[in-house]
């Protein structure tokens, strides 16, 4: 069961520049800031209420995030729904015939995560996440 919006992902050219608005001007606290080497991104999570904003900066050019930035520019990239069992959500999506990006949950900045293919939701990239106990305040 999807319980809340875990975060919205925003692709930016420079996380440091974007933090001047999202952290310094808005005053949102940073809860995680990590380079995920295999995905070629730096991800920064900022807390707001029960959700987070995730800034995504590509660290190399051969990734989906980099291609998104090159073709569309900065902006909203994906929406992540929190679930208490991401594997169950993924299987339910598979049973419904929804096209998947990830065939099995994997570790991401938000915990155990998986992505549905945007084609399944009219172009909107959807992520499911189950936070890992003790990870960045969840």
């Amino acid at each position, binding site marked *: 069961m999807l319980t809340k919006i875990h975060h*919205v992902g925003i*692709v930016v050219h420079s996380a440091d520049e974007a933090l001047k*608005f999202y952290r310094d001007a808005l*005053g949102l606290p940073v809860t995680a800031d990590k380079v995920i080497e295999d995905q070629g991104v730096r991800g920064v999570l900022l807390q*707001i209420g029960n959700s987070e*904003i995730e800034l995504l900066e590509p660290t190399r050019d051969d990734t989906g995030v980099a291609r998104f930035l090159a073709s569309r520019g900065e902006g*909203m990239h994906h929406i992540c729904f929190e679930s208490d069992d991401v594997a169950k959500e993924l299987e339910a999506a598979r049973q419904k015939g929804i096209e998947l990006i990830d065939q099995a949950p994997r570790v991401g900045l938000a915990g155990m995560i998986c992505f549905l293919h945007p084609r*399944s939701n009219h172009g909107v990239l959807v992520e499911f996440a189950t936070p890992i106990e003790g990870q960045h305040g969840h």
Partner: protein
Amino acid sequence: MDGIGATHIDHIVIASNDSGAVAETFRRNLGLEIKRTMTRPGTGAQLAFAKLQEVVLEFAGPPEPKPGEEVRARLWGLVLAVRDIRAAVERLRAFGCEVGEPKPAVQPGALIATVKTGTHGVPFALIQYDAIPPATGASA
């Protein structure tokens, strides 16, 4: 005030050329309950709403979808709820952001202000609920 005094993401806007179709897909695929639909006064835009805890998903589309056109949607913008919208606007202006004057929102009693620059590609607004006292109805 700690930052702009933002309390939560109030809503996330998903723009499309057919809000009804997109809301139905999210209901079917993700199990979201579509709690309300409405026509935006003035523009005729068709809106549908789902809510997860404090965050509203707003599906927005034109008054009439074009027949036969492929349904396309995208994550469009964010609205943050704040405790004091005038103080929040002043703070963002002090940081060099261009911010519109707070004006009455569609939601009764609420004020909304658009942040026009500095958001890194995200259409962005602030909203304060209970910002306009309700009319008493008393007459002199």
